[in-house]
């Protein structure tokens, strides 16, 4: 199975891979997937895993390169072994698709059969009414329309459309990251999507009715000096990273989004 992990910059793709690599070696109870075989070269995964274990932000993935991560995984319900290919590509490369500039992704020599789209927040377009009228900008030149002027919901829809044109994958999982921030406000990821982007919800229901939605917290919490010890303890107990399904069920099995695509 080839799964493309996509998402705009700083949506937590690399943090997820780092956390996943640890949990595949140290599965929690009832975990859907685990390593069938530890990769012969774990050095790249270590680079992603170490900061996660030390409760530190993972360095941003470098723009311009795609690192393919090949994993041999065992499905624990039936013991079947599955090869999973996950490329680690910088979010800027996905964002550049909207600007017709991401040759890296267009040239990517692979045919993914599934996509995991990571979304950190979905700020809707801002109503003009919400601006303060006294917010006068002293400028004499028309500001240039730029990526930052396109709402997150529209950027994500454009990325989905373009990636599906490039690689007509069959299965889709949408992962709303930093779910530790949202968990008290939304009972499940569908609720979050509906409330923050009706348009994107309509788009997904229309074109990808079988898409799975997940709320994901790979970090487990916002990092601060106060919670380092408790996060380490949670890591040891297998209760740090968590996933919330569309049914609102919380699980410490971080492999659920990946296993839903198999």
């Amino acid at each position, binding site marked *: 199975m080839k799964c493309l992990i996509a998402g705009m910059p700083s949506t937590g793709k690399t943090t997820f891979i780092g956390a996943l690599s640890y949990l595949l070696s140290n599965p929690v109870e009832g975990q859907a997937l685990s390593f069938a075989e530890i990769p012969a070269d774990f050095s790249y995964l270590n680079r992603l895993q170490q900061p996660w274990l030390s409760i530190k932000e993972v360095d941003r993935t470098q723009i311009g390169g795609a690192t393919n991560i090949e994993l041999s995984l065992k499905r624990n319900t039936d013991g079947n072994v599955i090869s999973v290919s996950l490329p680690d590509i910088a979010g800027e490369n996905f964002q550049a698709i*909207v600007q017709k500039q991401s040759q890296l992704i267009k040239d990517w020599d692979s045919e993914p059969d599934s996509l995991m789209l990571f979304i950190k927040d979905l700020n809707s377009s801002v109503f*003009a009414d919400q601006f303060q*009228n006294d917010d006068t900008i002293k*400028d004499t030149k028309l500001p240039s329309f*730029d990526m930052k002027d*396109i709402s997150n919901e529209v950027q994500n829809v454009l990325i989905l459309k*373009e990636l599906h044109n490039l690689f007509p994958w069959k299965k889709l999982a949408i992962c709303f990251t930093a779910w530790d921030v949202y968990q008290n406000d939304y009972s499940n990821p569908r609720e979050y999507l509906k409330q923050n982007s*009706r348009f994107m919800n309509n788009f997904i229901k229309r*074109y990808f009715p079988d898409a799975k939605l997940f709320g994901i917290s790979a970090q487990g919490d916002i990092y601060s000096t106060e919670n380092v010890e408790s996060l380490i303890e949670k890591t040891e107990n297998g209760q740090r990273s968590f996933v919330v399904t569309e049914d609102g069920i919380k699980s410490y099995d971080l492999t659920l989004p990946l296993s839903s695509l198999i």
Partner: protein
Amino acid sequence: MDDKIELITGVNPAEVPAVKPAERADNIGQFIGEAMSDDQKINALMSSSKPEITVLVGFVGYGKTSFVSSFYQTLLQKEDIAGYAFYDSETLVGLERRSFLRRLNDRNIEIAPETKRTVLGEPYLLTFHLSHPQYGDKLVVISDHSGEDYADYAAKKGKIADDILIKNADRIMFFVDSEKLCNEQRLSLTTQYQQLLRNMKENGLFVRKTKLQLVFNKIDKVNDENKFGKEKEKLITNFEDIINLKIGQTFEIRANSLKNNNKLISLFEDIILHTVEETSNQPQASSLDWVNEMINKKK
């Protein structure tokens, strides 16, 4: 009839408005999902549902872009309008650009007002794919040319003949700046519209059963209601005398605000529900497929 066939089959490609490079925004076309500038591309959208074409007509600063931006924002935010949910558009970036321009206008950026608008020759076709749980899909197409394009159409006699979409519009909404209608600029406004309407008439653009409507925008800036009432009546008479047809409906709106603006929302509902009147509540798909019907007749 032939015009419609031309639109479908591309027999007579529309001339893309000539634009001096310096007059265009610096990065138009750098994104996917821009507005379309070629009427022929609408053909590609017509296969699944009949497009309902609304053309916004008006000169610089009359509020067409604010109107279409408010329409887009309402569709984004609301679960549905009149039961229709917005689920896709080929021109998302074109719509975001218009929202950006509207935001600039509302933030009082101290730049020349004529620069905060859709520019001459900028792609202008915007699409909205809508879905109703009972009545199915609908494709709404809105043409939002720049005011300068219409100034061009008014000043140059044959120019508007190239605009295939106007010939095939189901609804033409003429935007009027109500503030200008009441101040010293009203003669400039009416004269420019007279030129435009004559050119439209001479080019045979009023022969179809197109809904013709007058939209009096910026109604909140009118101080003297009596004066506005008189000028409004004069303008309607002026329009009807030139085109020799009745203006179907008039609307008084403020297009740049959605707060407590039920009139604007009602107009949006009207665009979605009544741009093309159906003979039954649930039209058959075959009767909507006028693209193929026209092509077959041509053969």
